[in-house]
């Protein structure tokens, strides 16, 4: 491709009118996408925009709910196990500390990070980035940074995997002991639902555009 030729032709004074697919680099004109529908890249079918009506309010509300549930999940009893007159209580904190002897200590940090710390940081970052905009203010300082952090943490927040892991663990020991599910288990399960719901309302591109517009 001769660079000179093409740059001349795309002498589009306003590059704001273009968006490029993050997955395959294809250029698209940006148009208004009605709420509730999706715009996909025409080459690789990646969803480019999926705005939803009242998304910001819902994201903030759901993130706040998730944050409260997270506090409950960490501090309330998670599982109770009893067999032959012995009983054992376990909270999320105990689960995290399960690896805390010797060589396995780094793993306990990793588990803590994956199921509690990173999801919490992500929720706070989302609240910080979107919260002020929801009530009509300009975005807070470093809102862009906060939202970037929230986006990059997404694959590392593994609360939903932890819940499935709990189910597997319950089956494994189900034969040898009686297990009762504590408050924290249900808080955690609700947290997973709320977080998933929140992510379906999240349209990355729309949030970025809003941050940019309101920052001016």
């Amino acid at each position, binding site marked *: 491709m001769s660079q000179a030729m093409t740059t001349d*032709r795309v002498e589009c004074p306003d590059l*704001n009118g273009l*968006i*490029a697919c993050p997955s*395959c680099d294809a250029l698209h*004109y940006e*148009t208004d996408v009605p709420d509730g*529908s999706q715009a996909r890249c025409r080459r690789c079918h990646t969803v480019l925009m999926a705005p939803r009506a009242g998304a910001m309010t819902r994201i903030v509300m759901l993130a706040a709910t998730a944050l409260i549930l997270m506090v409950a999940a960490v501090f309330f009893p998670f599982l109770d196990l009893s067999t032959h007159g012995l009983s054992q209580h376990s909270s999320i904190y105990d689960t995290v500390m*399960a690896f805390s002897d010797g060589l396995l200590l780094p793993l306990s940090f990793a588990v803590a990070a994956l199921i509690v710390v990173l999801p919490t940081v992500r929720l706070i970052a989302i609240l910080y980035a979107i919260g002020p905009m929801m009530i009509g203010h300009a975005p807070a300082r470093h809102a862009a940074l906060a939202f970037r952090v929230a986006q990059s943490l997404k694959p590392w927040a593994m609360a939903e995997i932890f819940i*499935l892991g709990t189910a597997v663990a319950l089956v494994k020991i189900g034969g040898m002991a009686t297990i009762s599910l504590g408050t924290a288990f249900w808080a955690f399960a609700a947290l997973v639902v709320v977080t998933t719901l929140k992510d379906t309302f999240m349209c990355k591109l729309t949030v970025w555009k809003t941050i940019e517009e309101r920052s001016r």
Partner: protein
Amino acid sequence: MTADAGLPAQAPAARGDAHRAGSAAQVLTARDAGLVACTGCGRVYRATQARCRRCGARLSSRDETSLQRVWAWWLAGLIAYIPANLYPMLKTTTMGHELSSTIVGGVIELIDYQSYSVAVIVFTASVVIPICKFIAIAFLAYSVQFRRGRGRGGLARQHLYEMVEFIGRWSMIDVFVVAILSSLVQFQFVASIHPGIAAVSFALSVAFTMLSAQSFDSRLIWDADEAEDT
């Protein structure tokens, strides 16, 4: 609900390029247009821009070191996956007897207890997915590196990449199972469960392969695709 909401795809320059015919080749990329796109927020800049003004991400038209990092993390993940299978994942002590079980051993135990569905979940998450992931990432990186795209495969490989990114994290489930079991089952002499060293290397292996997949610049898939036409 998933109505294709338009976004008329072609930038002006693409229309004139008759020599770039063919389905995929009709698409004008930001690089072809002498622009650089932000992978974080989709905004487009002139090629000289270094950082995205909207989201602050560092801009690069193509991530040149991408493949190096993919292979480095891939190899690290593969190395960590070997001890994860050889060493015990769980050490169960009942009435003074210690029993260690590896990942595969744990699955066999579950089959013995006749909990087949859970055995399938654990086997899928800790054996099938990691191995498929190693193969899939290697295939993607190889196909990009040696231009083995052969035309139309772009969409299929894009889907493969998305699948690897989505499913990879679920392998962590076995580590969480070990954590929950060893925090719950602590009845001193009667029965207790302790994590084995394989839990660490398995967790590392999953993390490394996640990093490997994240290092991959999926735009390279489509570049390799286009290279066939020119």
